[in-house]
């Protein structure tokens, strides 16, 4: 997978890495058991300090998304962490409310929001660097 970081962003670099890895897992671009780049590889590829990569991986591991195996590397967890249904539903509802409120303030309608969701789904499940194929 391909990561892109932006040092001037509101999010610290380790959070940008966490977010992109979580997006990739969510979108299926990273699958269970897949090996992530090592601290050193990613540090040199992104030109950032190795400790920053370590911090991002440590946090992802604490959240249960990845697992580091001594001497072998870091892998996407075979079983993703379970979130309780109540928590999941309330978080999703919050996110959905804020999405709809932003959309309606901008003058969009419900149908437009569905289209936005479809686009976002496309971004999440497709490699972002890949050029988009023409829609048939």
């Amino acid at each position: 997978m391909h990561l892109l970081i932006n040092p001037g962003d509101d999010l610290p670099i380790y959070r940008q890495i966490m977010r992109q890895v979580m997006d990739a897992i969510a979108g299926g671009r990273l699958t269970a058991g897949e090996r992530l780049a090592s601290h050193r590889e990613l540090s040199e590829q992104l030109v950032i300090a190795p400790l920053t990569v370590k911090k991002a991986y440590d946090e992802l591991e604490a959240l249960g998304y990845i697992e580091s195996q001594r001497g072998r590397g870091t892998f996407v967890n075979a079983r993703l962490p379970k979130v309780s249904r109540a928590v999941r539903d309330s978080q999703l509802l919050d996110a959905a409310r804020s999405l709809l409120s932003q959309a309606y303030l901008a003058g969009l309608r419900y149908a437009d929001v569905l289209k936005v969701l479809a686009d976002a789904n496309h971004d999440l499940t497709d490699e972002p660097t890949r050029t988009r194929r023409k829609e048939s």
Partner: protein
Amino acid sequence: MPTTPVLEFRDIARSFRRGEPVLSNVSFSLAREEVVALLGRNGSGKTTLIQIAMGMLFPHAGTVRVFGMSPTDEPVAVKKRIGYVAEQQILPSRSTIPDLMAFHRYLFPTWDVALERSLLSRFGLSGNSSRMSHLSKGQARQVALICAVAHRPELLILDEPAGGLDPAARREFLETSIQLLNREGTAILFSSHHMSDVERLGGRVVLLDEGKVRIDDDLDALRESYCIAVIPRYAAHAITTIEQLPECLKVHQQYTDWHAVFRGTPQSVQALLHDTFGLKHLQCATVPLEELFIELVGGERTAEAL
């Protein structure tokens, strides 16, 4: 057993003209594999501090230790293990690149010819036998960097490494530093005004302000646990008390309102200001490093100044 820090400043003070301290009570240290970014405005004492570490200046008070040694008492033993690029590197103008490389190979027993070659080719300087005086500013800095790293130092000190370099050359400089950090565990102390470079190299930030260490903290802590509170003018009476709070680092006027820099998350600072002063709904936010830097060391901005 505690390991000796790679570099240690203890209560360093230094002044130039009588009564004008450039540095006072500066203390911090660097361990192996650690990166410290030295930030501060022009004239805040960054270069003076770096020169003290290099044994180029004596401190007027306090001690400096490099690998546990004094850089002025044991200059050779210390310099063998340090790589240094000065803000204005003066290379012998009549020497050619091959001359300079041969000289360094002779000086440093640990000189790595393979690394020298690979850096020369990365910088597009292989086979270039120009004299130093004929190189561009960026090329001269690249040569200085090769001279500073090819003996695989345990401590790399870079004073404004990005000064005068184009973005691509800056990135090459950073790539080289990060590879050294990864492969040798080299500790790095660098000063810079490019916040994006500071974010990339990561590690700790030491902010010098008027010769004193105002902040010594992790870069990520600066991004996530420092925030700016906007104190509107109707609450200006509270400013002097806010300034006394231990969590408050600086207050300054921003036109008719005031900005206060706090250590703490926006939520905790909002709660603090609410509990202490009854101030409600204040705007509190974490900010990018560059903004935080300006808030901490920038001057007042009032309408009269315009």
